[in-house]
């Protein structure tokens, strides 16, 4: 499988990052960049899940805190944290994650629908579960994640 990976149309490249102790995966084709700079300006009165805004090479990008989005306590900014920039329409949006770990190739066939116990409020944010040797990766549904709610 490994040798044909790049050419196999069933293969997806996933960027892996951690939110709390959960490993999340995002199709790399959706990722614009991963930014180390986490100088985020607060936006008061913004929806809870918006951590703030950041200066992305002269553009103002909204940064969404995935922890808050998943119903977790948000953390003080630390060195491990990264901003995964994705594009929605004409706008760049940053996703604040705890750390970025790896990029892996995943066979689409091995991504199974999310089991019923991860459904519920946050369940809609996942496309499916990819099983790696040791870990389970939650593949994110970006559209759902970026939906504007309040």
């Amino acid at each position, binding site marked *: 499988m490994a040798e044909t990976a790049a050419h196999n149309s069933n293969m997806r490249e996933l960027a892996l990052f951690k939110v709390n102790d959960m490993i999340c995966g995002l199709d790399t084709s959706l990722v614009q960049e991963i930014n180390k700079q986490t100088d985020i*300006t607060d936006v008061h009165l913004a929806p809870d899940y918006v951590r703030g*805004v950041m*200066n992305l090479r002269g553009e103002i990008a909204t940064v969404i805190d995935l922890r808050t989005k998943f119903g977790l306590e948000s953390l003080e900014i630390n060195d491990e944290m990264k901003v995964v920039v994705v594009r929605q329409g004409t706008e760049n949006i940053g996703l604040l994650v705890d750390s970025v770990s790896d990029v892996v190739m995943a066979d689409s066939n091995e991504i199974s629908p999310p089991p019923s116990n991860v459904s519920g409020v946050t369940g809609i944010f996942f496309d499916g579960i990819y099983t790696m040797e040791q870990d389970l990766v939650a593949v994110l549904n970006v559209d759902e994640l970026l939906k504007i709610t309040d």
Partner: protein
Amino acid sequence: MAMIEDEETLLAFIEESLEHMDGIESDLLTIEENGEDIDEDLVNKVFRAVHSIKGGAGFLGLERVKEVAHAAENLLNLVRNKELVPTPERISILLETFDLLNSLINDAQNSNEVDVSQQIFALKKAVASSEEISDEEAAASDDANLITLGIPDHPDLFSINKVELAQHLKGGNNLYILEYDMIKDIEQKDKTPLDVINDLIQTGNYLDSKVDTEKVGHLEDDREEMHIPFFALFATIMDTDILTGFVGLDESCIHSISLDMMSQADSASPAETVTSTTAESTAAAAPSPEPAATEPAPAPAQPAATAEPAPADVKPKKSGGLPPAKKMVKDSSLRVNVKILDNLMTMAGELVLTRNQLVQAVTSDNQQGIDTVSQRLDLVTSELQEAIMSTRMQPIGNVFHKFKRVVRDLSKSLNKQINLIIEGEEVELDKTIIEAIGDPLTHLVRNSVDHGIELPETRVMNGKNAEGLLRLSAYHEGGQVIIAIEDDGAGINTEKLKEKAMVSATYDRAQLDGMSEKELAKLIFMPGLSTAEQVTDVSGRGVGMDVVHTNLTELGGVIDIETAPGAGTTITIKLPLTLAIIPSQIITAGRDRFAIPQVNLVELVRIPAAQVKERIEKIGSALVMRLRGELLPLVSLCDALEIEKIYIDAETEKTLTDRRTNIADRRGISHELEEDQEAESADIQEDNDERRASSDRRVSPASAYNVVVLSAGDFHYGLIVDSLLDSEEIVVKPLGGHLRECKAYAGATIQGDGRIAMILDVVGLSNIMNLSTVAENVKNKMQQQESRVKGGEDSQTLLIVQNTPEEQMAIPLGLVSRIEKIKTTDIEITGGRRNIQYRGGSLPLFSVDEVANVGHYEDENANCYVVVFPIGGKEVGILMSEILDILDTNEKVDDISHRQPGILGSMIIFDKITLLVDLYGVVTAVMPEWALLTTQGGEDGKGEGHNVLIVEDSKFFMNQITEFVAESGYNTLQAEDGVCALQVLEENHVDLILTDIEMPNMDGLELTRRVRADERWHKLPIIAVTSVAGEAAEQRGREAGVDAYLIKLDREQITSKMQEYLTA
């Protein structure tokens, strides 16, 4: 159908034609205004415009455009030759014609399918109606008068109206047919046929042009041999040899047309000779020249392929993905003055130089060099920015001009008479704003004409001029542009609006009753309330007014409305100069920085810790601030945005969270805090330390409040911020979709250090905090206060000062020449009197306690203030320890309780008894000899026997004035208003009148007019004394016939003027 293949030529034509037509509307309207008295230059200008449109359209095969332009040209020609009078009817037809041309040209691709016969008929009729004036001209429109012109090879190239031709040949013009070759003479010289035509138009009379399609070569032909003749019919005074040089053609290609040929051609039946070619060939020819020239290969196929009859092809295929012409024109290009462009080039050059210097300085690590270069870079960048901005700026006249037409047409159809005045056309605004305000303004203007200004009969009945006035003006104010639309019509019926608002259930009665007229008028901007059917029935206004409001608000504009029933309506729009870069004030709150657009900024106020208590108070649960006698809703930005408050501890310099919650009542809170600390802290030593730290913080300058006074459209409010940083020009960046619901922000900006500052939306913020309700309550309170205060006395501007920290005093500002801050040590005591060296002389200093029984002024502070005023031809100063404020008040003066030498009376200001200082009293009590100086006239007995009538409604001022007039040796007569004054005049001999302006029954101006109108008194000197100073007031006074306009209590001026008039 002639498919227009050559996009560039077409685009050039469209752009140019639109430009030609740009100013035509107003020109036509001016022509109409002038009537028979024709301004030839103007008519010529319009004529030339149509003419070149016709030329270009003919060339491009835009038949309909050409026909319409041609018909219009005929009419204009007759006007030009004074054979037709430009009556309003004719101008109307021409205006419609230009509208039609405009729409045809904007959609040039499809223009040939448009039926224009009606317009042409109308134009012809307009010409024909002049038949009784000139038969010959009437014939001009007749087809039978066509003659055919040609050269040997092409005998029937052009067919042209005889009369028209005769016009062109006036003044000894020769007629030529110029034979260009599309490839050799045009394409290879980097020109377009349109350029050629334009050149011709500029040098002579260009009549028509045509391309010979039959000559177009074939695919297999050698390119060298190919040639596509392009013929132009041209009349000029130039001879053949001069013309050769000018057009750059070989002599063989310039065919002079003699009158013989003309007559020959004339004899032939024009109808027949023309038929075969003219129509189709022009049409079919159009597409071929350019493609043939640029890419010879497909060209030969063209004529055949597209040779379908012109109008048959209803929907032309958009070949080459050409977008609709209209869109292409809209924002494709911008005309920039060459000077500006040159300037830009120079600056770009400088920028490059600066960069080189910078690189050099950095490489050689030359710090001083870097400093110099960075300064230079700053300079060049801002200049560059300014220059680039200026290319986007356009005069607002572009928008205003179209209203001449709108108003004219509307008033005509509504049978109203309206005088439209346009002011400030030259004011420039960003292109995007200019484009966007057109529609809202049209709406407002239409509303004014339609519903504001009444019918002439109604106006006359109401005692107004039959002709309504509509004024459109634009001017700069505080870095913004103000546009005002002002009419003297019926105004808005707010009562009916109120009813409608009730029905729509947006407001309840109590709310509505509490609203001022202005707020009620503003209801027309409410959505739902202003749908066409509803409000037009009611108030007559409001058709889409909510849309106007929304549009303007989106542009960053602020709209304001003022209306008076029966007197008219004024709508003012404040707009930023540009949207991209806005000057802003940077402020901080908590740990964050914010930008506030200067547009919304009214002023910055710092409330010292000591004044917090008296200047900030609570109404209900809301905070308000006192500012020059006005109450403003006040809100802390930290509260509004739910920001954690911080302060910097004075001792540890650590940033801590502020626990204060109450702003207004500081004393109570600090007490609470102390209790808190006492409870928490067991260690007494520590407690003391803490307490000191906390009290330090409270009296240190840092504990003063910084208030930014903002304008949220119809009201102002104060915003407490932590600190004020620079004022900066910021670039506005939009916020993402997730933040769209955050109404507190208008965007964000990136600052020099890369950090982001949010831009506050001043109106949004006030909505979040519901400040308009607060403003409402505040106003009610103010009104109550006002009604309490009102005693018929007019307001005065007073300087509020402190004599001693406990004692507040007031000085009429009108008497003060200057206020100086001096060092106490600079005061010298000479001959027992205080003096200070001042402007090369010495300034005698006085203090109020020298005369009056008031707190003793001590020179204990390092600095003090001197209020300088003139007396007896020299300046003196009164010492004060502090200057507090300047305010307008109509608080009643109590001239009994505290009356004493040096004190005129007292009044309540800031809830404190305030003594009104008698500047002259103080000085003359100390220096009686100076009093002699000022009233010498009286002492000499010159004043004796003269009767002075004093007209004044306020008892206090009456006493004041009477006193010093009597002191000057005049006899005084008193009257408490204009009516009484006239009575006194009837009964007594009066030599001079001193009158107040603001009085009940009859005011000073009216009194002056009456006196001037009466023969017995028309030479009587009249001096107006008032507290309402200012240019405009003075102007009104002079217009009424007042001889001099002086400030009340300015005893010196008044006596010297009286003397001047009475001894003259």
